[in-house]
């Protein structure tokens, strides 16, 4: 019986993250447009964009190898798997034993690796430029992420996400200064990883400073749809991961009734919406940073993470 419940919840989550991802991206775009006093495209526009892209024919460069065609599927699957592992509305997932922070980071890194390879494969200058920038950002963001993982695992005693969520919701984690620092670091890392504004501008592929868009410039049709979907999924993933680590209230735990799970679902959707609005406000307030100032921002994230680990060691016993 339990196996069936867990399986059903897992299937529901896997489907839900994919179904909600374009809506979330649409919501962020809509709020941003409204904040700039533009009318904004409807939130559901992103779904029709995906439908359009899926209908269109794929155009591939002459000198593209099999790798170029493989990459979109690889990236999409890695990110989708990662997104379905994070406990969003319930910790009773069938694949919960695999939901480990380190595994999650590995999945996302392999997606990034694939994307950079695909960008390099066709040999256009934008692809190489985007790939090298992406790798630079990744090499700065990853140490900060590791520090966050250290803090969380020192606090909760594990990197296993469902256990972390359970521990955090029971121990008033938000009162711990280390957790506060880790949360700030997490915001910085998430902005970098999801290619949002101070790091990269998701709204344009016409800038010389673009990073993610430069890498996917040559993709079209269903390949582009998969890559864009992976981008949207990543946004859902990072928002859910943030909620799971730092605001884990409402997630249904062991021995939850169906009502609890439904409530958890509602709370998760509300959390996502609030996160999307906050992200849009943040993006409107900030300007895109110069590429060489990113080291300061992400280095700041790393230092916050380091500080939180130090304080966790010093005051961990209190």
């Amino acid at each position, binding site marked *: 019986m339990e196996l069936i419940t867990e399986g059903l919840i897992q299937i529901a989550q896997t489907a839900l993250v994919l179904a909600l991802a374009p809506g979330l991206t649409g919501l962020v775009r809509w709020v941003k447009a409204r904040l700039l006093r533009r009318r904004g495209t409807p939130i559901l526009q992103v779904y029709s964009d995906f439908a359009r892209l899926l209908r269109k024919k794929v155009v591939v460069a002459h000198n593209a190898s099999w790798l170029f065609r493989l990459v979109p599927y690889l990236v999409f699957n890695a990110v989708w798997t990662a997104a379905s592992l994070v406990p969003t509305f319930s910790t009773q997932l069938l694949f919960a034993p695999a939901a480990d922070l380190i595994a999650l980071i590995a999945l996302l890194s392999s997606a990034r690796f694939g994307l950079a390879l695909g960008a390099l494969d066709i040999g256009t200058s934008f692809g190489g430029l985007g790939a090298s920038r992406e790798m630079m950002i990744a090499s700065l963001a990853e140490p900060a992420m590791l520090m966050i993982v250290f803090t969380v695992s020192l606090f909760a005693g594990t990197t296993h996400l469902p256990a972390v969520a359970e521990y955090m919701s029971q121990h*008033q984690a938000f*009162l*711990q*200064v*280390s957790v*506060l*620092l880790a949360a*700030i670091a997490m915001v910085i890392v998430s902005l970098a990883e999801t290619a949002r504004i101070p790091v990269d501008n998701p709204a344009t592929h016409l800038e010389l400073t673009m990073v993610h868009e430069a890498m996917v410039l040559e993709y079209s049709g269903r390949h582009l749809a998969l890559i864009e979907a992976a981008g949207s999924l990543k946004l859902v993933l990072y928002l859910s991961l943030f909620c799971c680590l730092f605001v884990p209230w409402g997630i249904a735990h062991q021995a939850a009734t169906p009502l609890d799970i439904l409530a958890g679902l509602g709370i998760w959707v509300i959390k996502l919406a609030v996160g999307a609005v906050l992200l849009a406000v943040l993006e409107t307030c900030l300007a895109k940073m110069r590429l060489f100032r990113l*080291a*300061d921002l992400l*280095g*700041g994230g790393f*230092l*916050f993470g*380091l*500080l939180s680990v*130090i*304080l966790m060691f*010093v*005051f961990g016993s*209190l």
Partner: protein
Amino acid sequence: MEFSDPKVQLQIAYLLGGSMVVVNFALLYQSRMSSVINAFAIHATILGLAVAWQANVQNAPNLYITAAIALVFKALALPAALHYVVRKLNVHRTVEMVFGTGLTMMAGVALVGLAVMIMQPVTQHSGALVTIDLIFAMAVLFLGVLMMITRRNAVTQVIGFMAMENGLILAAVGVHGMPLVVEISVALAVLVAFIVFGLFLFRIRERFYSLDVRYLDPDSRIPQ
């Protein structure tokens, strides 16, 4: 959540002190003058909250006055005055630093580590609340000094000085029963210092047409 639970009380004091350290890093990170001043206002606001919380925990109503002084003078009046000075004097709107942001922030983290290493053995027998309070106060103090020595512009050095002052007050309220006289004198000292610095800034500018303190060095080779 029970606010009378000593553990929760401890954690809230700890959170407020920690937030001050975090804002101090924000102070070090900012590269525009107006954001530095705003960050200082946040710094003072959190100090006010931390002092008010200590007043609540220690049951010392006179500390509420210190909190009010912090909130009214330091969080509202001083930042407004500094914004005025920056506008009036046409100070360079970017913060001029001696080292890059990254190096300064790294030095900051090292200083926080130093504060922990100094204060933990010293306060071993006086309870966790005092230990935490003094560690954070020491860290704020150190970061204020760091801010003063890594900035070229006199206005940012004044802000570093006042952030340091905030650290002193945080340290003072952490130990039981500091008499009110001392607090008021500290607050006045800050105001006096601010006035003195204000005059000083006007003077430097009148004399050198800039607020860059390098001009004060007789051996400096900056063309005037």
